[in-house]
C-alpha cells in the first residue's frame, strides 16, 4: 500500500477538533493511568540521578519534554519515509541531535546547570521513555497526535521526578529551590537526612509514590 492511499480518506472526512476526546487521552493517560515512570517504570536512571535538588530537576524536566515533543514531531513527519530496517538508527539520530542542541544551549546560557546536569542531559538519548514513544507512537501516528503524546509522556515524567526532588531536597537539605524552608519557619532543630541525598532516598520516595498511586487507581499486575 502506498502512502497516498493511506492518507486520502482522512482529507475527505470532517476535521477532528484539535483537542478531541481521543486526543485529550494522549495527554492525560501518561500523566496518571499510564505514567511512564510509575506504571511503565521507564526512565528510572535519570529519575534517581538528577533529583537531589529541585532546580536541576526542573531543568531536566524541561529538557526531556522538549526532546520528547520535538523528536516525536520530527519522527512523525518523516514516518512514511523512514525505511523499516534502519528505523531505530534514524530515531536515535533524531533524539541525539535534539539532545545535543539542548545540551549546547544549556552550556551557553546556564553553565552552572550544565556542570550539574552535564552527563545526564546527554543520557536523555538513552532515556527509554523517548525511544519508547518514537517506536510505539510517532512511527504510526500523525504529527499533531504525536506532539500531544510527547507532551503527555514528558509531563508524566516531569511531575514524578519533580515530586521526588521536592521530598529529597526538603528532607535531605532542608531547602526547596535552595530556599531554606525549615529555617524560615523556625524549625532549626530538624536534622538533614543524609539518606535522601543519596540515590537510595530516590528509590524510597519513588516507591512510595508508586504505592500511593497504585492503591488509588486499583492497579493490577497483568
Amino acid at each position, binding site marked *: 500500500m502506498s502512502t497516498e492511499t493511506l492518507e486520502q480518506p482522512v482529507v475527505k472526512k470532517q476535521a477532528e477538533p484539535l483537542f478531541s476526546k481521543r486526543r485529550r487521552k494522549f495527554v492525560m493517560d501518561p500523566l496518571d493511568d499510564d505514567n511512564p515512570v510509575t506504571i511503565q517504570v521507564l526512565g528510572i536512571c535519570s529519575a534517581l540521578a538528577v533529583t537531589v535538588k529541585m532546580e536541576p530537576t526542573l531543568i531536566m524536566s524541561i529538557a526531556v519534554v522538549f526532546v520528547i515533543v520535538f523528536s516525536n514531531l520530527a519522527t512523525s513527519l518523516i514516518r512514511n519515509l523512514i525505511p523499516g530496517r*534502519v528505523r531505530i538508527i534514524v530515531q536515535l539520530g533524531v533524539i541525539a541531535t535534539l539532545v*545535543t*542542541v539542548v545540551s549546547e544551549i544549556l552550556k551557553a546560557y546556564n*553553565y552552572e546547570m550544565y556542570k550539574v546536569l552535564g552527563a545526564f542531559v546527554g543520557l536523555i538519548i538513552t532515556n527509554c521513555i523517548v525511544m519508547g514513544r518514537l517506536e510505539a507512537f510517532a512511527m504510526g501516528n500523525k504529527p499533531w497526535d504525536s506532539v500531544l503524546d510527547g507532551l503527555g509522556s514528558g509531563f508524566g515524567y516531569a511531575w514524578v521526578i519533580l515530586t521526588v526532588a521536592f521530598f529529597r531536597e526538603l528532607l535531605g537539605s532542608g531547602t526547596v529551590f535552595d530556599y531554606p524552608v525549615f529555617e524560615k519557619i523556625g524549625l532549626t532543630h530538624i536534622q538533614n537526612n543524609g539518606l535522601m*541525598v543519596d540515590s537510595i532516598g530516590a528509590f524510597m520516595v519513588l516507591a512510595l509514590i508508586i504505592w500511593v498511586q497504585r492503591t488509588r487507581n486499583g492497579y493490577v499486575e497483568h
Partner: protein
Amino acid sequence: MQRSNTYILVFTAIMTVIIGGILSFTSQVLGPAQKKSIELDTKTQILSAVMNINKKEDVLGIYKKSIKSMVVDINGDVITKDKKGNPIVAEQVDLVKNYKMKPADREYPVYEYKNPSDTSKVEAYILPVYGAGLWNAIYGYVALESDLNTIKGVSFGHVSETPGLGARIATKEIEDRYKGKTIFDNKGDLVSVTMQKGEKKDPALFGPHQVDGMSGATLTGRGLNAMLKNYLGDYEAFIKKNQQHQ
C-alpha cells in the same frame, strides 16, 4: 514496508547531512555565548577563594578591577610564552591538560588579588590546584595571604564525588575549615594542610596544619590532601621567591 538498499543508503546519507548541518549551525551560533559562560565560571571560582560571591554581582567587573594574572613555571619564574612561542593567558591555561604533563613541564597560573580600594599591595595570591578524588577529578583554588603562608580561603569543586559525603568538599562548611591554616612549619619547610580522618566538629582540636575530616569521605579527603601537597610543592619556588621580596 521493504525498501531497496539504494533507498536506505540515500535516505541515511541525506539525514546525516541534515543532522550534521543542524549541529554545526547550533555550535556556531552558541559558540561565543558558551565561551563567555566558561569565562564567567572560571572567574567566579577564582574570586570565590577570597570573597563571598553573590550570583547577581558583576563578577567580570570585580575581576577586572582586582585580579592581576600571570603564569609561572616550576622554578617560580614568570613565563609569557609557551613552548611554541604563543602568548599564554593565565585564565586560559588548561589545568586538565597540564595535570597530565610532568610537573616540570606544566604552566602554573597565579592570580594576584588586590583590594580595589588599596592597590599598593597584593592582598592574596590565588593558586589553582587539581587532583583526583575518589571517583573522578577534584579541583580548586587556594588563596594565600600576602605572607604566602596563611590560607585566606579556598574554593573546591569536583566532578562526581558522592553526594552528601565527598561532594561536601565544595561546600562552605568544609572550605571554611581551611581559613587561617598555615602551609609552612616553624623551620620553613612546606608541610601543606592535611585533612584528618573522622569528623570531630571541634576546630580547637586541630593544629595549624590540620583540618577536621569528613565523616564517610576519608578517600576524598586523601585526594584533597594529595592535591594540596602536590600543587603547593610545585608552587614552592614561586612562593619562596615572593616571600623573600617582603
